[in-house]
């Protein structure tokens, strides 16, 4: 389907590009939001990425997947913008399995709305690269190979980011839940 519309756009029917906007806007928005954590900024980056992809469509290799090619544009653009925001991220030590169990039990004590709120807040505390690695691996169900194609990073870097992201996520969540549960008690 993508190939059909790519050929249409390349033959001059630029309105056919609407198909790509409609199909990939949610995908682009979620991966860019994982990096930028700001709705307005994400919308701007997604818009720019779509325009950039349109302008570079001639150079698209039709043997590749459009989603991967476009996803890479979105990720690069988002990381470029994220670089301008200077925030220091903490690197945490390994979380013991016992603590993960406690976190898992504690989160069940708070209601669904609060769970959503705290987990979203914790996700925002992750560094852009950790966040995108987790988003792609756990939520978009991408394999390591697909993440390599999307980001251009090496396998070891992706694995390191996934491990670091996991540690940071649990550590931040543990801290937040500790305070929250203390308040409840």
């Amino acid at each position, binding site marked *: 389907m993508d190939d059909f519309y790519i050929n249409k756009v390349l033959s001059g029917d630029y309105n056919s590009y609407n198909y790509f906007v409609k199909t990939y806007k949610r995908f682009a928005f979620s991966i860019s939001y994982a990096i930028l954590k700001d709705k307005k900024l994400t919308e701007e980056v997604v818009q720019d990425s779509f*325009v950039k992809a349109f302008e570079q469509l001639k150079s698209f290799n039709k043997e590749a997947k459009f989603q991967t090619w476009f996803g890479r544009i979105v990720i690069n653009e988002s990381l470029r913008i994220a670089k301008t925001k200077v925030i220091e991220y903490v690197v945490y030590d390994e979380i013991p399995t016992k603590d993960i169990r406690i976190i898992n039990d504690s989160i069940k004590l708070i209601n669904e709305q609060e769970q959503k709120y705290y987990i979203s807040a914790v996700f925002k505390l992750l560094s852009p690269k950790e966040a995108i690695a987790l988003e792609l691996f756990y939520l978009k169900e991408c394999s390591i190979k697909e993440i390599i194609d999307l980001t251009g990073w090496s396998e070891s870097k992706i694995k390191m980011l996934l491990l670091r992201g996991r540690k940071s996520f649990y550590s931040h969540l543990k801290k937040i839940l500790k305070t929250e549960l203390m308040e409840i008690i």
Partner: protein
Amino acid sequence: MQKDNTLHRLLEIKETPEPSEFMDDKIMTIISQNVLQTSKNRKILYLAWFFFMIGLVSGIIISTIFIKTDTTVFGFNLSDQGLIIKVLCVSAILLLFEKLYRLSIGIRYKQFDI
């Protein structure tokens, strides 16, 4: 690499805002404006090349005629000053050619607009 199921379940709870409903229209408007601008720029560029070629050809014809005859302009004999005029004209042509060439490359790779 094995997935951490607890982390997977927790991340699924995470909230991701939806893109605004006007985003599609905004993107398509920007794209149609870009397409329009690019085609305008191309037309301007073709015209620039057209006039450059007309100027170049007429310049060659005129200079050939002037050099053959004994024409004077403001008291100067053009055949005497031939070399200076040729140097000035060729420099101007090269300068214009370089500008037009850079503009063509710029428009092709979208480095800048007219």
